[in-house]
């Protein structure tokens, strides 16, 4: 299939948009005229007759709706450990095919973008290699989940710098029929794209520019901001507007809870929100970076973040979800907050009036409430260096892939000569906001990192917060999990010299 080259001629997109907003789908321009801000990419594609992508849940959980979009590759974001020297390697391609949940993407946000659906990868007479492996290997039974698996697998097949199929790529796709064995085997049997592969070739050119755009339709307008000041001005000018970054939270609100807004402001392309700096005394993470981008760029430089990522949602969600969005929702069960609390992070808030820096511990003010003011955006997250020597993130769930925490405990312990000089513990799921376990921190600091200290502190931790009973877990279990977390951390890290060993390998 042929992809229309929009990025090659920078003026083309804006020019075309002036005529009619459009996206490139499977190589052909498809108009977005009259698409309202609440219409998902999934509904829009299906209305075009592209019915391969299916709705299984409309909340980002099943992956039946997965599609591919071309996204830029950040420097250092290539799936390889970022701390490797790059001198001996060829530079990564400038763009990559990224699988996302079409049910959570506003269709209007695809304006000027390139999309490939399962239909665009191959046809029954000319199967794509991914499709062939799945078909021959018995990877489809009812076939309803299959187009979504195909897209997730294709993204991994084309991942720059891939050194074998990472099954994490399929963590956001559910299949109720096969039991996954044939899907896994098909994935592991995949080779690499050939030299003449059109979609691989597409990645040798930059991703389409994400310029300033607007799409009007019934129910309102979608604006894409191209720079920070534009986003802030739109926000100031349109009270009641909703900022959308990855849309993974917003999309669920729209689909499941009937949320509607007349004005959406897309900030996923704002360059000021998409920077990542590792300095001498701070790691600065742009609030608009997707979790997959952060994961790729940081590697395991910040071990707590490296532990968080594979436990956070699924690859499909992490390809869209941003750190800023996760903190802005101020959810008591968000996973980034406990980790960033343990890391003693501060966050930078930006508005037309300037910037302010707030310690994360002071950011959350109540159930889904924060100090974020109208007209303000989270710009970045600052993580102070050096990092603590002992760190662990314990997320308690029913399912290992893609499940929400019933409790999450992030702990960072700094040791000096076997003594705890500093302890930071962030908790999720035990109070209306993410909280620090201050009493437990006090029970650890100034004491030797040994069983006696840990047992005493564990007893304190059991009493922190006020966990509730719900369908995820009983309060008693949540309390028990608070109680075992430090014991588990100590068992894994009796000293700070020992590398973490995880008993339950994934």
């Amino acid at each position, binding site marked *: 299939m042929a992809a229309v080259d929009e990025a090659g001629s920078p003026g083309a997109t804006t020019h075309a948009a002036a005529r009619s907003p459009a996206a490139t789908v499977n190589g052909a321009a498809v108009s977005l005229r009259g698409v309202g801000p609440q219409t998902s990419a999934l509904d829009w594609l299906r209305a075009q007759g592209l019915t391969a992508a299916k*709705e299984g849940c409309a909340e980002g959980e099943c992956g039946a709706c997965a599609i591919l979009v071309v996204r830029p590759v950040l420097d250092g974001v290539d799936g390889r450990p970022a701390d490797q020297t790059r001198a001996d390697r060829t530079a990564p391609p400038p763009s990559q095919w990224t699988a996302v949940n079409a049910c959570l993407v506003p269709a209007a946000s695809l304006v000027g973008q390139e999309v490939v659906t*399962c239909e665009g990868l191959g046809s029954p007479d000319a199967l794509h290699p991914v499709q062939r492996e799945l078909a021959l290997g018995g990877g489809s039974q009812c076939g309803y989940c299959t187009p979504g698996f195909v897209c997730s697998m294709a993204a991994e097949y084309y991942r720059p710098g891939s050194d074998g199929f990472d099954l994490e790529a399929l963590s956001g796709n559910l299949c109720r029929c096969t039991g996954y064995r044939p899907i896994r085997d098909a994935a592991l049997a995949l080779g690499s794209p050939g030299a003449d592969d059109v979609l691989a070739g597409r990645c040798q050119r930059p991703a389409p520019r994400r310029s300033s755009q607007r799409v009007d339709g019934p129910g309102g307008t979608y604006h894409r901001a191209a720079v920070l000041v534009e986003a802030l001005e739109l926000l100031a000018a349109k009270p009641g507007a909703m900022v959308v970054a990855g849309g993974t939270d917003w999309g669920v609100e729209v689909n499941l809870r009937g949320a509607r807004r007349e004005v959406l402001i897309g900030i996923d392309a704002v360059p000021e929100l998409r920077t990542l700096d590792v300095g001498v005394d701070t790691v600065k993470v742009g609030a608009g970076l997707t979790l997959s981008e952060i994961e790729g760029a940081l590697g395991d430089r910040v071990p707590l973040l490296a532990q968080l990522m594979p436990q956070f949602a699924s690859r499909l969600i992490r390809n869209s979800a941003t750190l800023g969005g996760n903190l802005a929702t101020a959810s008591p069960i968000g996973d980034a907050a406990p980790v960033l609390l343990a890391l003693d992070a501060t966050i930078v808030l930006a508005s037309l009036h300037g910037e302010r820096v707030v310690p994360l511990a002071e950011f959350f003010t109540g159930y889904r409430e924060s100090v974020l003011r109208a007209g303000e955006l989270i710009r970045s997250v600052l993580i102070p260096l050096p990092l603590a020597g002992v760190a662990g993130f314990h997320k308690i769930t029913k399912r*290992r892939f893609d499940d929400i925490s019933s409790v999450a405990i992030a702990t960072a312990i700094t040791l000096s000569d076997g003594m705890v000089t500093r302890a930071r513990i962030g908790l999720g799921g035990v109070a209306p906001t993410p909280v620090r376990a201050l009493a437990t921190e006090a029970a650890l600091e100034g004491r030797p990192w040994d069983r006696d200290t840990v047992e005493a502190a564990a007893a304190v931790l059991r009493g922190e917060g006020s966990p509730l009973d719900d369908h995820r877990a009983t309060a008693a279990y949540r309390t028990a999990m608070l109680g075992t977390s430090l014991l588990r951390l100590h068992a894994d890290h009796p000293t700070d010299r020992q590398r973490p060993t995880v008993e339950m390998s994934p």
Partner: protein
Amino acid sequence: MSALSQRPDDAAVGLTVPHESAALHVTGAALYTDDLVGRFRDVLHAHPVQAPHAHARISRLDPTPALHVPGVVRILTAADVPGLNDSGVLGDQPLFPAEVMHHGQAVCWVLGETLEAARRGAEAIAASGVDYDPLPSVITVREAMAAGSFQGADRHVQRGDVETALHDAAQVFTGETEFAGQEHFYLETHASLAVVDESGQVFVQSSTQHPSETQGIVAHVLGVPDHAVTVQCLRMGGGFGGKEMQPHGFAAVAALGATLTGRPVRVRLTRAQDVTMTGKRHGFHAAWRVGFDAEGHFTALEATLTSDGGWSLDLSEPVLVRALCHVDNAYFIPNVSVRGRIALTHKTSQTAFRGFGGPQGMLVIEDIIGRCAPQLGLEPHELRRRNFYTAGQTTPYGQEVRHPDRLVRAWDTIAESAELDTRRAEIATFNASHATAKRALAVTPVKFGISFNFTPLNQAGALVHVYKDGSVLINHGGTEMGQGLHTKMIQVAATALGVPLHRVRLAPTRTDKVPNTSATAASSGADLNGGAVKDACEQIRARLDAVDDGAGLAWEDLVAKAYLARVQLWAAGFYRTEGLGWDAATMHGHPFKYFAYGVAAAEVEVDGFTGAYRTRRVDIVHDVGDSLSPVVDVGQIEGAFVQGAGWLTLEDLRWDEGDGPDRGRVTTQAASTYKLPSLSEMPEVFNVTLLPDAHEDGAVYGSKAVGEPPLMLAFSVREALRQAAAAFGPPGVSIDLASPATPEAVYWAIELARSAVPATPVPYAAGPAPRDGSPAAGDVEPVSAPPWQVQT
């Protein structure tokens, strides 16, 4: 070897072929009901108004608020029904109810130009168009038992003298076992699309496992004869029993809307609507008393099973019958008295789900074994093996157990191929050296009866056309939901006609092609429809052979010659399973054509800090007879196993049981709260083998049904978890493990084990003194002894 089971040389059955729609699946070209909407003009979209009460009388229903919403076209209420206002066959499931019987029940439907308009219309009615008088509700099965809230017929399977046997038993245990239901979570939610065609006939495309019944119910709702309604099912995005009875009402809503407006009407449920409106696997409560002799043989089982039927009967009665017929699983129990009854609760009307009561019956006996083995001082696998049926023995309901040797063969094969002895030793070493993680290995058998318990359902039809050019088109009464039925039917037709597979095309299931079909259910799709397809093909083949008269003409030439000779080149085929007999009142007879057997060995590792676990390895040997289609059969075994493991370990269906305003609401109504197995739950090593030399004389081409039986192999995972939790404590302690065995449930089981005092060996008690099996896990105060203090 019977004519039915005999397989010619170079048969197309048995070949390793992919699913017939595989190329369509992987390219997204395979169409499902809701993919068709774009092919019709002016489609109306339907949205329900769902009741916010578990039980209430509707005191006022006024559609006017919705009519003020732009884009709303019409509201469907009971007053619009020209025929019978019922979505079932027993007359107890009103389509538009006057009395709300469960939280989320649809009280009326709004049709809109867009789904958004219909949704807003429904919101408007919910806000100001409907009033309810709440009534007292029964939510849990225990509440129903206390209140005496039951429905349908009680059943009783009985053999021998249980009282005497229990009196004489060396050991008697009593206990209770309670376990939850399961949401089908087919990836494709319920969907129907109805149009009135140019001849005035109502044509309904529906995601249904039972097109004939969907047709019948649409017809009775519309008040027209069956011949005025045609139902087609292209394929389903999963069914698992959830589309056997449940689609009818949605098809009827679409059809009613289409006849009233003259426009196509689409009903497609959101996931939340699907979960809150449609039935699920029945949860059960069981109270039991069991006796063993001094060698650990069962002597008697007395039990009462209460199934949680939800608000109407639906398929609860046959599900209960199958549960009672599978309490024995693979074990000979000489004296049996097992009663069954159906609770009426204010919940969705529970229905068929892969296994159809079989899993629930078997769970009871497997739970009994898992809990009693430590107290009998026997390894659970030893206790299981000791009680296997042997040749000549009969089930409690009087059917001879044919081929019990196959179970032994599967058991022995696994013991060897999965190196069970070596691995048990390795596990013992691992457990001795790890305080905070424990492993365990459990082996469990399955014996599952094949055929609909209700004998008349064991019939099927097919229509086979051979065209003049030699191409073949087949239709049969079964539906395709991913189980590979169509693939197998193409193979059967190619085999019976003696043509290559590519000459055979299969057309979608429609009620105007093959009438009066049974549901594609009870694993019997290939047995029944295969028999019918084979019959039709053999009629044609016989006529062609007469034309050929030994000349050995090529297929195309032969067909052309037959046409010119005015020989009929199409045929209707019919099949009914011979040799069945069942007395429903006495629960006695031989309801099953044969039994399917299987054995699974599962190894798990459990984390002592959290109760989290992983399945390290699973080995399965399963009996599918002579496989019709090995890829399909292995796929069914793997998929069923993982689905069964989901039910038993992960899928946690919750209802609001409190007295607040949301009482009776499903609290896990989304994929984010109801967790299905994902890739992370797949066994890390997963070996599935088909039992060799397993010809089945009574079924098409020597094959056996495969859809349901392997689901129950997943008991091996649950039992392994129980054993791993027990390994945190002293030996000889009975561990009660809640179901589903979520990490939390496993954690409490571990705590139970850790807090247990080492058992002193129990001498076999003489006499009947019943003893409690063990305390319930939930009753146990959690203790938090640091894991490293627990020495094993």
